[in-house]
């Protein structure tokens, strides 16, 4: 009898474990939780899906941005209401939370936290990211009614994504003091290396999908600087990238020396372990050196 009870208990625990495990693995699909109607708007036409091949047909001019991170598909729904502009809902299924975060950093102007993990509300638009989803809800031109409706929709999508996503590891190497938070730009494609100042038309940092880069602005009273940090898979690749940069950037630069460039602003670049860290367009030598000192301290921890 004891043996039978033991067997039943074991089976029950195993089943419970399987159920819990499966539930944890299945992510609810946010597009399935969208309402059919919202504040008088209703679904206008069949939902559409676009993938890597067809994204160009849907978003003229932005497709490459999504593809430069990691993208699998986008869900599109249009809601209509008489005498009101259409509401366009796009849910981008990015390959990872890093990718959703990356796209978000390049497509916003200011940073808010009303929806998802980070969001931005502008005239007739709400954009946010959460987990591996990048969500955009548009309604142009904005009306008082549409403003309320898109806010409700954003809330519904946000609520349906129950897990937050991880930020890229490189974020933790950013010195927090004097960081302009909305200026953070994450990238794994060299096309984005000029986010805050022109660096080069070419891939002079040897950036690929295995490197993680951040550009951010720092500001304190009258002091300004742009900080760059790139994390490579190993030290050799970082050293090699620094050499490529030094050979192809400006002839006057010397690694590990803070120098004043012809534009009157300060510059420094250096390699530390598997990182390249640099300062561009700093208003003073002290401000530049201080940011880099703090970044190196974090790397050394």
């Amino acid at each position, binding site marked *: 009898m004891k043996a039978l009870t033991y067997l039943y208990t074991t089976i029950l625990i195993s089943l419970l474990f399987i159920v819990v495990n499966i539930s944890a693995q299945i992510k609810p699909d946010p597009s399935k939780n969208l309402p059919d109607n919202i504040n008088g708007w209703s679904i206008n036409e069949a939902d559409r899906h676009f993938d890597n091949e067809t994204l160009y047909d849907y978003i003229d001019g932005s497709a490459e941005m999504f593809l430069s991170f990691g993208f699998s598909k986008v869900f599109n729904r249009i809601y209509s209401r008489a005498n009101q502009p259409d509401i366009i809902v796009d849910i981008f299924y990015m390959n990872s939370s890093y990718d959703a975060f990356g796209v978000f950093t*390049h497509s916003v102007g200011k940073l808010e936290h009303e929806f998802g993990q980070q969001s931005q509300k502008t005239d007739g638009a709400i954009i946010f990211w959460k987990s591996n989803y990048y969500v955009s809800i548009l309604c142009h031109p904005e009306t008082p009614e549409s403003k309320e409706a898109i806010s409700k929709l954003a809330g519904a999508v946000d609520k349906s994504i129950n897990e937050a996503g991880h930020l890229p590891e490189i974020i933790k190497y950013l010195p927090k003091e004097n960081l302009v938070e909305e200026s953070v730009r994450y990238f794994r494609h060299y096309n984005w290396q000029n986010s805050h100042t022109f660096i080069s038309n070419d891939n002079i940092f040897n950036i690929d999908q295995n490197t993680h880069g951040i550009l951010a602005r720092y500001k304190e009273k009258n002091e300004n600087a742009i900080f760059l940090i790139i994390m490579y898979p190993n030290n050799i690749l970082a050293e090699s990238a620094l050499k490529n940069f030094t050979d192809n950037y400006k002839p006057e630069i010397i690694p590990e020396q803070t120098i004043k460039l012809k534009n009157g602003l300060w510059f420094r670049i250096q390699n530390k372990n598997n990182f390249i860290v640099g300062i561009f367009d700093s208003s003073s030598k002290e401000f530049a050196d201080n940011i880099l000192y703090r970044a190196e301290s974090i790397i050394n921890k």
Partner: protein
Amino acid sequence: MSPKSLTRREFIKTGTLAAAAGTFILNNPQSLFATEEKSRVVLIRNKNVITKDGKLNPEVIQDMLDESVRVLFNTKETSKAWKKIIKPDDIVGIKTNVWNYLRTPPELENAIKKRVMECGVSEENISIKDRGVLRDPVFQKATALINSRPMRTHYWSGVGSLIKNHIMFVEKPSDWHGDSCADLAAIWKLPVVAYKTRLNVLVMLTPQFHNIGPHGFSPEYVWKYYGLITGIDPVACDAVGLKIIEAKRKEFFGEDKPLNPPAKHIELADTRHHLGNADMKKIDLIKIGFKEGIFI
């Protein structure tokens, strides 16, 4: 030098001078070889082009186009200017841009078509199109192209430009997206396009200076500039438009905010592909209309 050896850059650089001299540039290309170094570009602005309710005034658009073309070709009569670039037996494709949020205005398309028809071109030999030009019978047989689109910032190429507008003349546009669209100018050398574009009109009525969101558009980042930029040289027209966009960004954001990615395809159209002039020192910019907020 024979007409066959005329390069696009030579055509563009010298076209203005030839036209100004009253020479029909397409029938007599030998006459184009002058010492003209600069590309002529006309920037015209008129506040009346946008009405109080935000619509475009078709009559003002027509006037702006006409005056631009007269100045560009240095003629007193509009018809004479157009006849320098369009022949009655031409088959004309008017290449526009239909991007949802900021398209080539139909009022401008109609204004161009009207003048092309007045050159003696029959209506069935004119087509206005953006997507699908490769399958359009008029564009397939086109002997002349008029290229017109609004300038806007663009997530991958920096700006949507006149140079970029010809991307619909390739079967797979995404094949030209490499290195942030660096080599778009090479499209202008493909047989379907080469030497056919007689006039470029960059629409700067309500240009867009910043991208936001997946569709890259927000009404917050367009402004009323009330302008048109016309020229034979698409690179020069784009270079002028780009300067205006960059200046607007600086004013709006209160600091240098470079386009990201940079619109390098415009500079490379000059330095690598020799399509025209991107260097402002080599652009003869003629400004017509009000100067407030001109940015250049």
